[in-house]
């Protein structure tokens, strides 16, 4: 056990002291923020130029007055032109589009939008809404109905959400769940890929350095393997903790410096507007409190550790089986595939039906269960025995996979210059 501790310590210190690790830890948050700023800037660039839309209203009912100029669109009413002339002029002016509004004997009104670009659906539906509304009102008036009366009679049915036990939840309740579940699932996937790869590289390094023979003449290979996996994961946790602290500090500083500007940003304004309703915000908080937080946090650690160890064991076996990183390709598919599959299952099946057959099966399969289960848990309604079975399967398979990985590792680290394939690996298992 002393030796295991020594190995963990060395792996940890070696990783943490590594220059690329230090650079990654402190630079990648900056890169991350930079990318977000860049995206924000590009988005604002994209919308900053106003596009001109010409309108040809042939109804004589001033439909063109419905459109006001906005930051994004300049509306240009055309009068006394035929449709063909309007099209020609609009095209010559290089307009974004041309809206032609005509009377139609059957449908009442006929709207055509000419454009060589693909107008966004939000733009099209805005045009539709405006014209429909006015046309409807016109119709009502023609049929002798008073518009004011009609408006006062109009009813907007609002749906409020409640659980069977009577707890009110916000409409964004499922988004909160998806957000939390998705974030933890995604975090786990990234952690597995980044640090699993790091473990693999360090195995390959020891193999190509040939120090492995000296080490395994001092300790059992299984200790080296466990020490390596643990040491690297601790380095990973350190990195994550630093990121969280850095992120927190940056947010605090950012909101102090740019606080006012941030809320002036149109993108943020939307968010503010959405949750303007304090009641809604209260409901979201309420939702979060109502989530099975204890289970979520507990399971997060159990599945995080389990998932990481399961994959890290596979990564070490791969590292031991090859001579250089370029040879790892053929073995990577079985690692990456289940990870991607779990994310897909999580974002499609789980969100659609958290207790559906697909979601349930994938939360039992050990290679996918950590991510899928983490995404299922916020939706609740998972019985304790489902979680127990899933965890039991996961940890049993860790023991099994680690056993096989250790076997491959033990043989592989001492094999040089041999191109390894699946058949060869199978043979090693029988040594």
């Amino acid at each position, binding site marked *: 056990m002393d*030796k295991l501790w*020594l*190995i963990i310590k*060395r792996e940890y210190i*070696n990783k943490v002291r*590594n220059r690329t690790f230090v650079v990654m830890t402190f630079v990648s948050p900056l890169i991350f923020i930079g990318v977000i700023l860049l995206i924000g800037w590009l988005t604002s660039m994209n919308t900053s130029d106003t596009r001109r839309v010409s309108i040809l209203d042939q109804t004589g009912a001033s439909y063109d007055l419905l459109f006001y100029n906005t930051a994004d669109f300049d509306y240009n009413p055309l009068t006394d032109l035929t449709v063909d002339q309007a099209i020609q002029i609009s095209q010559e002016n290089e307009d974004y589009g041309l809206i032609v509004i005509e009377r139609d004997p059957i449908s009442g009104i006929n709207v055509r939008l000419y454009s060589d670009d693909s107008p966004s659906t939000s733009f099209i539906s805005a045009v539709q809404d405006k014209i429909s509304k006015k046309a409807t009102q016109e119709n009502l008036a023609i049929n002798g109905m008073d518009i004011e009366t009609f408006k006062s009679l109009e009813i907007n049915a609002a749906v409020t959400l409640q659980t069977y036990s009577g707890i009110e939840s916000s409409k964004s309740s499922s988004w909160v769940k998806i957000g939390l579940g998705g974030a933890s699932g995604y975090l786990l996937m990234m952690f597995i890929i980044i640090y699993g790869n790091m473990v693999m590289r360090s195995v390959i390094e*020891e193999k190509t*350095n*040939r*120090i*492995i*023979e*000296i*080490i*395994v*003449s*001092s*300790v*059992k290979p299984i200790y080296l393997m466990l020490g390596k996996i643990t040491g690297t994961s601790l380095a990973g946790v350190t990195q994550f903790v630093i990121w969280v602290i850095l992120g927190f500090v940056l947010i605090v500083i950012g909101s102090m410096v740019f606080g006012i500007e941030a809320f002036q940003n149109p993108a943020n304004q939307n968010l503010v507007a959405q949750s303007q309703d304090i009641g809604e915000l209260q409901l979201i908080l309420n939702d979060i409190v109502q989530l099975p937080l204890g289970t979520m946090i507990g399971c997060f650690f159990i599945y995080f550790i389990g998932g990481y160890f399961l994959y890290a064991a596979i990564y070490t076996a791969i590292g031991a089986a090859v001579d250089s990183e370029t040879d790892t390709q053929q073995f990577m598919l079985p690692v990456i595939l289940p990870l991607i599959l779990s994310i897909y299952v999580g974002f499609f099946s789980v969100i659609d039906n958290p207790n559906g057959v697909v979601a349930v099966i994938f939360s039992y399969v050990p290679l996918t269960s950590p991510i899928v289960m983490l995404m299922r848990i916020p939706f609740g309604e998972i019985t304790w025995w489902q979680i127990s079975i899933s965890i039991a399967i996961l940890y049993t398979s860790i023991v099994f996979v680690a056993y096989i990985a250790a076997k491959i590792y033990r043989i592989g680290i*001492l094999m*040089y210059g041999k191109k390894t394939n699946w058949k060869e690996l199978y*043979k090693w298992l*029988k*040594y």
Partner: protein
Amino acid sequence: MLYALEAKNICKTYGNYTALNDVNIQVPKGSIYGLLGPNGAGKTSLIRIINQITVPDSGVIMLNGESLAPHHISNIGYMPEERGLYKTMKVGEQCIYLAQLKGMKKEEAKERLTYWFDRLGMQGWWNKKLQELSKGMAQKVQFIVTVLHQPDLLIFDEPFSGFDPVNADLIKDEILRLRDQGATIIFSTHRMESVEELCDYITLVNKSNVVLEGKLNDVKQRFRNRTYAVSLICQDEQRVVNELKSSLEITTGEHTGLDNTSDFTIQLPENKSVAALLQQLTSLGELTHFSEIIPSVNEIFIKTVRSDG
């Protein structure tokens, strides 16, 4: 005799390939033991079993009379043929880490390390990273890593490769000194002249089997084959050759005597004594050189491996 290491009936197979087939060796305490054999003969397999890197399919290894157990790790120092250290780790830290893995206390390792650094002229290397060192320098570090925990069995696989002659000599003296201090040394190499120079005992492994084992001197005794180098000053060389040829095998000698001598290599038949040969030779001319040709380890090696097929 007291054996530092005994391997009894060791068998090891990898799939269909037999790496070791019923191998027995006995390494006397305090000796330098040469483990010889062509590439792929099974030397490394045997060394790995002794180091508990792999386990034999059958057979036992006895270390100082006890059967091999995990705690024996600290009794063995192993320098593999393929040298390896962590390239990005500092020399001092690395040596201490590896010594700790062998079960040494940190403080003790530090102390011993200072001693060795002074001894091999490596002061000031402590905080250097391994990748900053030359190959020969790295080899010195490797040597220290092998001996730092004061093991009583040292296994060197090609210890001199990568050293310049000066440093090779330095390491050789250190090995001899360690032997004098009581360590037993197993020495695997292809460089036969160093076997000749250092080894007390040898074992020759070929195709997974031990084909020759024993004290170097005894092995050489076994390979004596009544061959002699002769130099003679005579009037008529052709006549001398003809006369000698009638009773024994004679070839031109590989050794060189004086300018005016005829040099031969003579293979003496079983029925003729050395005394009789000497008598015959002195009658033919003035005998200036007569010595038995003792086979070198190199010759024994090649001969044995060839005859083993």
